[in-house]
């Protein structure tokens, strides 16, 4: 029996029906510009304020701390560049981040290095957890901002974010976290979690692509990234993307309600992990327990990830890999290399990211199909041939 299984929710998620329904009035009747003083503008402004309030209530912050952006990448760029610019005025020209950040963070930091900032890239352990000892030694009175992701998009490892916040704050640095993968998967309450800035993105939460936000805690001042009209309290120019903002608000509310399903998702994840690691020469990438409820990353030795994905796709399964051949980047995943996975093994990684829409039958179907595909590819791999020969020689 063939079926269609979307197991790439860490890449993007389908927009949910409820989100589409919530957005439709903004296209059909409420298409005003929130800055206009006439009736169309006023009702658009009301919707904008309402969306902001609802988001603030989901996140446990106040509406004035929410700034809409075009997505995770913009929020990452803005938080780090804006904080770096501001903290430079206080003589703090050092930035601390980790080796496993998303490229939206890493490339932003690299760009700042070219502008004269100093950046330290903190290492992680074999599970992808930031080395807190190293972090403590890296953060100094010169550090302006510490940027560490909440949960990793490739291996799913969740960081000890509270401790990281304390380390940053002890030295007077601002703390930013990229929570793009965490929001919706981990209950985040910004009245308790004392980060100064947090980024999230709509399309990982069943809202559309191209919408996100940056939370900036009251009292924290950062420079602007996008200048324009006076929108978002003069901090982010551009006519507000009202339909998508309304969609994001609905998506966040639904994500919060859906949290009750996460234990079931985690169970399916664990079944995938335990069944797929029964395949010889395979191992889990990332932390066994401190990981996103829907994210599985397994390395299969002696085969390459893209060919695995092609076969899975033909079977109706959408997945992802850290192999260079699929990402079109120059090397295997920087995250897998940072946790000490050798190149050849990193090429054979398979990421499956499920959601509460995933069923037990989907999991059965994935398990049924991965084994034979791995075997098929190994049977044509010269590296596997060497292993088999060594094994038969021993016997």
């Amino acid at each position: 029996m063939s079926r269609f299984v979307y197991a790439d929710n860490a890449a993007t998620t389908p927009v949910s029906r409820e989100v589409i329904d919530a957005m439709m009035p903004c296209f059909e009747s409420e298409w005003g510009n929130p800055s206009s003083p006439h009736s169309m503008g006023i009702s658009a402004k009301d919707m904008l304020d309402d969306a902001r309030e609802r988001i603030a209530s989901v996140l446990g912050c106040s509406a004035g701390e929410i700034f809409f952006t075009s997505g995770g990448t913009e929020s990452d760029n803005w938080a780090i560049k804006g904080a770096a610019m501001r903290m430079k005025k206080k003589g703090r020209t050092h930035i601390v981040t980790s080796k496993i950040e998303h490229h939206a963070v890493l490339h932003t930091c690299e760009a700042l290095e070219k502008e004269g900032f100093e950046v330290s890239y903190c290492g992680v352990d074999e599970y992808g957890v930031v080395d807190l000892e190293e972090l403590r030694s890296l953060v100094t009175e010169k550090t302006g901002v510490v940027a560490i992701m909440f949960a990793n998009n490739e291996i799913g490892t969740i960081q000890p974010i509270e401790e990281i916040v304390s380390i940053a704050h002890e030295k007077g640095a601002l703390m930013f976290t990229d929570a793009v993968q965490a929001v919706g998967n981990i209950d985040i309450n910004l009245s308790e979690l004392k980060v100064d800035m947090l980024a999230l993105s709509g399309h990982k939460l069943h809202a559309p692509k191209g919408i996100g936000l940056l939370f900036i805690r009251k009292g924290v001042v950062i420079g602007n990234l996008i200048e324009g009209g006076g929108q978002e309290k003069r901090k982010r120019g551009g006519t507000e993307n009202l339909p998508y903002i309304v969609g994001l608000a609905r998506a966040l509310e639904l994500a919060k309600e859906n949290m009750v399903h996460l234990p079931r998702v985690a169970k399916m994840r664990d079944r995938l992990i335990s069944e797929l690691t029964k395949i010889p020469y395979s191992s889990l990438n990332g932390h066994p327990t401190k990981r996103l409820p829907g994210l599985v990353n397994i390395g299969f030795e002696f085969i390459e990830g893209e060919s695995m994905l092609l076969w899975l796709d033909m079977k109706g399964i959408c997945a992802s890999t850290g192999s260079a051949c699929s990402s079109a980047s120059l090397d295997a995943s920087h995250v897998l290399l940072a946790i000490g996975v050798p190149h050849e093994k990193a090429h054979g990684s398979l990421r499956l990211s499920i959601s509460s829409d995933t069923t037990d039958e989907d999991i059965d179907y994935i398990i049924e199909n991965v084994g034979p595909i791995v075997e098929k590819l190994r049977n044509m791999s010269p590296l596997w041939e060497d292993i088999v020969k060594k094994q038969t020689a021993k016997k």
Partner: protein
Amino acid sequence: MKYSEKVMDHFTNPRNVGEIENADGVGVVGNAKCGDIMKMYLKIDDNGVIVDCKFKTFGCGAAIATSSMATELVKGHTVEEALKLTNSAVVEALDGLPAIKVHCSVLAEEAIKSAVADYYKKIGKPIDFDYDPDHDHDHDHGGEDEE
């Protein structure tokens, strides 16, 4: 990125996968670090004709498809003809490859050449052609796509 039907055909039904015992020439190119390794086996008769050719490949869809196509293109031909096989001929026979995958076809060409070089060594014939077994192929990558 999308592959041609030909590429998908050779990827899903690769021709000539396997090993040849007591092969007359064996060539291995690429490295696991870059994510692709091709191993080619040649069986060559007394007239210098490649009567059988098999391969094993660790690599992406394009690596498998180019290996498969290369074996098809040299099988039944003389060693001299096999040496004339170019990577662009492999690409053409596959109805094209995405730009970032062209290096796989280069690897296939090198794999055939290094198998022939091994054969020449065995029969004591001087190797009068260029080949690069450690071929550190250019990853002519366009850019980075990621989520």
